[in-house]
């Protein structure tokens, strides 16, 4: 078939567009890899030590990894049970006519910029924690974790609600017809269908928690130290993202410190990408909607 000129131009335009759109992510990965190469080759496994002290040439990122994992665990321990129980209510108990309002509310809540959560964290949450535990400063790992839990809650609720809502009504009806109570209907007829999507939702939430920057940066205290004792979350800490947010712009491009920071970013990116891609491709695909 002979193509007209406009068809040929059109086709090359759309082809270039898809190439650019899909290549950007690879470009970002490549840039991070190139720029962290210096750290990888010069410091080697030493990056996974616990001391970050640029003046002494020590670039250990363990404290930041600890911080990221700690806030993630705190945030998810709060947000997962709370979010799923709430979703159960909105999807299974709440009359359908209110659903639209609840969903819109959640969507608005999920849209509040993270910097504003950070402001609320500084003004209220960290002060409350300071007073409640009688600390010198409330800017602690715990504050970061709780704030992240609140931030990620709308996402957990709305995605779990979708997962439950997408289970065909016939299964509920059939189970009810056998004389099961709502709790049993949920447990035996609805959850087995929704569990995959809920798992996907939780993976997305996990990625979001790990990658969140501004709010955590403002409330976590920004000290590059692993707490002693190990599980004391009432001390200030540092996550990968808060470290990057605070220091990358002040670090000289091309220095070993810059490279070590980029390496942290690469590590973060690889994990978040793994969670996101796993969630979107293997678990969560109703209508292929996007959630950030």
């Amino acid at each position: 078939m002979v193509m007209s000129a406009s068809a040929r131009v059109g086709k090359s335009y759309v082809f270039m567009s898809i190439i650019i759109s899909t290549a950007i992510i690879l470009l970002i990965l490549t840039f991070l890899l190139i720029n962290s190469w210096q750290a990888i080759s010069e410091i080697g496994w030493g990056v996974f030590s616990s001391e970050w002290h640029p003046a002494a040439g020590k670039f250990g990122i363990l404290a930041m990894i600890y911080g990221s994992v700690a806030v993630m665990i705190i945030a998810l321990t709060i947000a997962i049970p709370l979010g799923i129980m709430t979703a159960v209510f909105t999807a299974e108990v709440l009359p359908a006519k209110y659903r639209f309002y609840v969903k819109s509310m959640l969507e608005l809540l999920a849209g509040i910029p993270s910097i504003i959560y950070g402001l609320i964290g500084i003004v209220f949450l960290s002060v409350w924690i300071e007073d409640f535990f009688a600390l010198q400063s409330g800017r602690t790992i715990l504050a970061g974790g709780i704030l992240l839990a609140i931030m990620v809650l709308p996402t957990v609720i709305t995605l779990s609600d979708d997962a439950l809502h997408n289970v065909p009504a016939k299964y509920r009806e059939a189970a009810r017809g056998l004389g099961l109570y709502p709790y049993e209907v949920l447990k035996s007829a609805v959850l087995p269908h929704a569990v995959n999507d809920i798992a996907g939702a939780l993976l997305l939430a996990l990625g979001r928690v790990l990658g969140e920057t501004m709010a955590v940066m403002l409330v976590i205290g920004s000290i590059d130290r692993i707490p002693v004792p190990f599980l004391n979350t009432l001390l200030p800490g540092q996550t990968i993202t808060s470290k990057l947010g605070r220091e990358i712009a002040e670090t000289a491009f091309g220095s070993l410190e810059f490279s070590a920071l980029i390496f942290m970013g690469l590590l973060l990116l690889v994990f978040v990408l793994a969670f996101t891609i796993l969630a979107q491709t293997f678990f969560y695909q109703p209508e292929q909607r996007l959630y950030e």
Partner: protein
Amino acid sequence: MNATAPLKIYQPEATSAIEMRDFNAWFAEAHILRDIRLSFRENRITCLVGPSGSGKSTLIRSINRINDDVGNYNCSGEIRLSNQNILASGNDVAKLRTRVGMVFQKPCVFPTTIAGNVLFGIRHLQKLSRPEKQTIVEENLKAAALWKEVKHRLQDKASSLSLGQQQRLCIARTLAVKPEIILFDEPTASLDPLSSRAIEDLMLSLKEKYTIVFVSHNIQQARRVADDLAFLCAGKLIEYGSSQQLFSNPTQEKTRKYLNEEFCDC
């Protein structure tokens, strides 16, 4: 309409299992069922017939109150089961549904094994030992005329069965809960003729032990299976009587037309 109320003509000789008194139902503003007075006889098969939108499904789905969970549904009147009004508020609907089982239009098997589906309801009602489970699975699959076909693959996925087999599995699952009454909401609507026949035979064999109410679009099927017929039109009960009488000698012109598959303007 009470002047021609068919209930006065028809006197059921067997005791009735369910009685509906002045039953009305609405979806939002739409008045779906009007002043229904009906009594379903014990150990008989009663078939509800009528054109689409006549309220048959709403009626049958009211008997185990499964409509309660549908938005905008409202009803008034009484439905009496062993002399208690099941519509009374505070009644435990879950318990009611163990007494009044239901088989739906489309077979709906749960994503578990064949045996797991049979046990799906009953295992919530009582603790079962392993041999008890085996007995329940076998007994009910036999009662549902499915045992021969699946006895060697009880641990297979239920979704691997054909649609007709799935529907019989749904019946077995309902029987396992030991209901007194079973409601069939167009159970053969999505099945091929041969599978439909299997379900019909099954219903006939079940009526010794259970009271059966079913909805059908298929008049020939009603003729084959039903002891009693109730003809509904536009939310009203037009005529109710033994199947034989309604087919041979209906009192209402509408009934005669509908049962003869002629055009019926209601």
